[in-house]
């Protein structure tokens, strides 16, 4: 195994999002991973683009934004180190519904969604493991959206 492959597998398994991942799953998942970094202001992706990846954030901060008519871009969530950006790669039609912009210099592991979907399809144990880790991210986003809609703090 080359040093680079070994390193990325370690990074993936040590990222809190994949905490406690069994070694064979770590190998399979890491096969879809590569290093990525973004300068402040650089976009990871744009609304409407096809969602072919997700990102394990290792350092920095990413703002998730929606453009609202007359209001410019509104940030509705920031994602920081040890967290993950992107669940759309899991769910058809695999399309981003918001923009993601690096607020600071950001280092991440970019995961190829199509690659990982294929492996999950072929090995449902892996698929269940991945689902269990993404489901809380989805639920937390849903709960946060409920609170934001309620506008609990008022004017």
């Amino acid at each position, binding site marked *: 195994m080359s040093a680079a492959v070994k390193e990325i597998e370690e990074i993936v398994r040590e990222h809190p999002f994949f905490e406690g991942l069994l070694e064979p799953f770590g190998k399979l998942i890491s096969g879809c991973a590569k290093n990525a970094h973004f300068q402040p202001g650089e976009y990871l992706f744009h609304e409407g683009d096809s969602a072919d990846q997700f990102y394990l954030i290792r350092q920095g901060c990413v*703002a998730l*934004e929606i453009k609202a008519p007359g*209001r*410019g*871009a*509104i*940030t*509705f*969530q*920031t994602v*920081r180190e040890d967290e993950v950006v992107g669940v759309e790669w899991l769910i058809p039609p695999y399309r981003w519904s918001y923009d993601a*912009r690096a*607020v600071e210099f950001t280092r991440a592991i970019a995961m190829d969604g199509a690659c990982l979907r294929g492996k999950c399809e072929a090995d449902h144990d892996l698929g269940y493991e991945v689902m269990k880790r993404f489901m809380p991210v989805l639920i*937390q986003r849903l*709960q*946060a959206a409920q*609170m*934001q809609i*309620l*506008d*609990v*703090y*008022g*004017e």
Partner: protein
Amino acid sequence: MWTLEIEPSGPAPVAAAPGQFNMLTAFGVGEAAISLSGDPAEPGRLVHTIRAVGPVSRALAQLRPGAALGLRGPFGAGWPMAEAAGRDVVIMAGGLGLAPLRTAIHRLLTERARYGQVLVLYGARSPADILFRRELETWRRRLDVEIEVTVDHAAVSDWRGHVGVVTTLLGRASFDPANTVALVCGPEIMMRFSAAALADAGVRAEATYLSMERNMKCAIGLCGHCQFGPVFICRDGPVFRYDRIAALLRHKEL
């Protein structure tokens, strides 16, 4: 949102404990319970922060410098400062809820050596709605207190901090949950979610305190106006231990 500083015209005011409230009267309009939000080390300066939402609060917020108003108090059971001694203190504030917690923060910082880690997690609607922003920035520069602010949403141009609900800040904070006292104040729904997140993080319900709001009239436990299940907010609270009111909070109609 308005912050009033009130100079007593009668006898010197009774020193209030962090978390207590006064009944303020806008003459000819009515009376409302308003928390003290100043520094308890300066009992001569009565500071109140008011959101103008109805007749009384609007009349209070519109008072000009030099105008007179009525005041009685302080009332109620405040934050458990004695119990917090020697422990980590996690403060979770939402919106105007920062006002009653500000007195506790001042007390913690004045007596800093008495406590373990001190964390202040504050959620506001948007960057423009952040209360006491300059003071938060001053506190942030201190090395002995962690201040984290998040907003529900922000225009891209005016904010570089956290965006998301206040409970997300808890996951990133470092403290010893088994040896922590948590003080929570904000809209009731925010307090419910915060108390649940604190419990998930390992903070005991017996060590989590919430400040409740109900409309008040007498403020001395006589009229029953502020009844919340079996308790009166004015007499038994407004600060309650979470385990004592958790079941009540789940009832929508109370």
